[in-house]
């Protein structure tokens, strides 16, 4: 039983219960951190999906002459119509905005979604690997504790 660390294999059986619980704590933290990142990636992906839907439904020929209300503040709206149903400004990061056609904008967002999907998949594998390691460590720790208890009881019985 060994965890596949970075090019370094340690026999878990040779560690003391204390060391094992330390390893477990560290793994717990790592899994927690990675799960957080995973959720963040999921959230970002959802945001891009919302953007695609917004561009598809909000900026199209079908809404060209429809009146819409533009929020000036959270409680004050003025009526308006969409002047351009073909172009949108897309935030590409670090404060830069690029004018794109609606089709290109959707392509851009779909590309981002795919990129994130790849990252999510990679991360999933890492989380699963870590969770596996954690399970193994927990199992060994449990056996150690049980063996320790039995040893203690046997000692009491003998005396």
């Amino acid at each position, binding site marked *: 039983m060994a965890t596949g660390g970075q090019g370094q294999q340690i026999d878990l059986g040779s560690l003391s219960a204390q060391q094992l619980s330390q390893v477990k704590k560290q793994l717990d933290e790592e899994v927690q951190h990675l799960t957080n990142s995973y959720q963040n990636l999921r959230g970002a992906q959802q945001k891009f999906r919302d953007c695609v839907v917004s561009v598809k439904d909000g900026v199209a020929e079908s809404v060209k002459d429809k009146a819409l209300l533009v929020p000036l503040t959270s409680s004050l709206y003025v009526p308006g119509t969409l002047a351009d149903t073909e172009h949108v*400004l897309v935030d*590409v*990061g*670090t*404060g*830069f*905005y*690029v*004018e*794109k056609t609606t089709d290109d904008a959707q392509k*851009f967002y779909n590309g981002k979604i795919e990129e994130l999907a790849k990252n999510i998949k990679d991360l999933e594998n890492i989380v699963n690997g870590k969770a596996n390691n954690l399970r193994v460590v927990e199992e060994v720790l449990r056996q150690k504790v049980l063996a320790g208890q039995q040893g203690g009881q046997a000692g009491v019985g003998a005396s």
Partner: protein
Amino acid sequence: MDPQKQVQALSDEYQGLQTEYSSLVSARQKLESQQQENKSVQKEFDSLADDASIYKLVGPVLLKQDTTEAKSTVDGRLEYIEKEIKRIEGSLKEIQEKSEGKKMEIMQIQSQMQQPAVQA
């Protein structure tokens, strides 16, 4: 000097180095995420047509920017970030070596302290 005090001083220094180290690590992390973002912007710019309109967010307003200018801005940022990361890597290595040395010193003094105790 009293070895006890010496150890105390050394471990204080060691602790200081460790704090410095972790603050540098988080600085590097921040730079790396900025580098990532700038790289994706650069990739996006490379795939744009020459006549594409690029706007830059300055405060609350969007200012129209020249394509080549925007590209060179991002390139410049990436260059700077790369340099910064290299610089921080250098300091990280330095600190690691220093704290390794401190650790050795502490261990040496501690074993020296133990020896006379055993003999006595």
